């Protein structure tokens, strides 16, 4: 048990956090009937994956990947990649954040349109309106 706590839980806690967040988001998308709550769930789901990517780039004791004395500026020295956090996943997530903002915008616009038509955001009520 203690071994599991040490290796499985504490060493990989970033994975546990993203999985829990992802499941919260999925649950909200499936179980909630209010469209806005579903949209919030979708956003939590996307954010969980963004956090997962961000966490895999981080290193203990690592610093920001800016080279003060980069080669070509009069200082030639060998870099130790382990001292710097990995910037690539973070850069990728800039794009993913843009995508998730755009998705959120489209989703809210659609929810607004639906609300104006049916005067409710409850999916069950909307469906009963539509089947009439």
């Amino acid at each position, binding site marked *: 048990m203690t071994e599991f706590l040490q290796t499985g839980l504490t060493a990989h806690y970033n994975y546990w956090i993203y999985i829990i967040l992802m499941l919260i988001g*999925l649950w909200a*998308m499936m179980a909630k009937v209010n*469209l806005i709550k*579903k949209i919030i769930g*979708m956003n939590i*789901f*996307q954010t969980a*994956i963004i956090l*997962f*990517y961000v966490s*895999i780039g981080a290193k203990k004791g690592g610093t920001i990947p800016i080279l003060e004395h980069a080669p070509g500026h009069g200082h030639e020295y060998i870099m130790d990649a382990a001292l710097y956090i990995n910037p690539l*996943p973070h850069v*990728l997530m800039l*794009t*993913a954040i843009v*995508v998730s903002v*755009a*998705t959120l915008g*489209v*989703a809210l616009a*659609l*929810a607004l*349109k*639906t609300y104006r*038509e049916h005067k409710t955001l409850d*999916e069950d009520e*909307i*469906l009963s309106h*539509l089947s009439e």
Partner: protein
Amino acid sequence: MTDQYPSLILIAPLLFALFVFISSWFSRKPAFIMTAIALGLSSASAVGLLAQIMANGPLSYRIGGWAPPMGIEYYVDHLNALVLVVVSCLAFWNLIATRPDIERSYGDKAPIFYTLYLLSVAGHLGIVVTGDAFNLYVLLEIAALSGYALLAMGNARAHLSTLRYLFMGTVGASFYLLGVGYMYIMTGSLNMLDLARLLPPLYESPAIAAAFGLVLVGIFIKMAFFPLHAWLPNAYSDANSPASSLIAPMTTKVMVYAMIRICLTVFTPALAFKSVWFSNGMVWAAVVAMVMGALFALTQKDMKKMLTYVLISEVGYMVGGFWLGNRLGMTGSILHIVNDAVMTLCVFLCVGCITFRTGSTQFESLKGLSRKQPYTMAALVLGGLAMIGVPPTCGFYSKWYLILGGLDAGHYEFVAALVFSSLINIVLFFRIFEIAFFEPYGDMHGDHYHGPPHEKIQDAPWSMVLPLLVVAVGLIVLGLYSGSIVTNIIDFAIPATII
């Protein structure tokens, strides 16, 4: 210029989307011409690229001159050159064929529609052309987001059904992204060819198996593979016809391509077909998709909705054919990507021509329509025969390869399901033919009919019917040339290790 084809295919619609939007501030006249030029340019480059690939073999294109694996690479071989030609040409042709419908349905919003149309096509073409796993995700979302906006402009139900599509689509894309993340953790690379080189020593790792599973599930949601199909029928049938006749032929086929690319290039067939139970399970899942799609289609009372379920059944053909794991099955699957795209375009354009005049595709309102819309119905007959798989239409040839592949692999359940769903297709289409050709019109005062008086219905304008007839005749031409498509293109698209 000719060595810039891979980027030109994508940049033309992307750049013109901006121009069309800006021009709409001043006048809505030039929007159509600009869209047509962009898509024409894109299709011409795709055809040129295919000719280049056929002459010189696969090609790698560096965006901005940055060398892979750091820079983004466009990798084009026989497989995606073929899909690029299909997607760009059908997007161009759908634009030509639905212009009167676009102008009437969207009115002042037509330039917005054209902008979204270009963005959606650019996204789909990008998915096909890119050689970078993360880039594929971004383009997947560009294609999907503009697709949501296109589909949402429809009837009263369109907003809700599109919102449901958006939820499912976002989950699908997120699963794909998560799978790519696992691959990145294990290899440190995102370039497809680089991944193919780095992954084989890691095939035993559970993280790679998880990555493979997540990526596949993401793609299956996006392609509406049964039982992940629930978003598709409503989203497509509630949209206006110009949007649905663009997206219905394009999205599912492009996602089948993405599956093939992931399984053949990123993960070599050695991993994809490593465990027999997995590939057998996929074939069985495809069998269920084919049968259930056909059965659901049988219960529909609206032609457009029926066609969306036929589409789900067709996805089963392509996925199942690929997972048979032999050369014949994969040939059938890739050939069916081409054929199904054209067939679906044909029948959805027919739906567009019918709704343009009657406003409905309920079976009730199709009564006696053959006398009112003879040319549309003639095209529908050809489209229906192709869907059933009657020679010499193109549908026959891909089904023939799929059946041979199924027999060769010993998957008799796949062959049985294919024959079964083709038989259901006969029932589906001949029921429509019977209603349209033999039921008398005139007693149209039922409860469900709210369209114009039946005496005034006539065939859609020539600018819609003529392109439709070209597509319908194209089904036969494509069928006659399918032999040379297979020997000249598809044979090179499948790795030599697959027999």
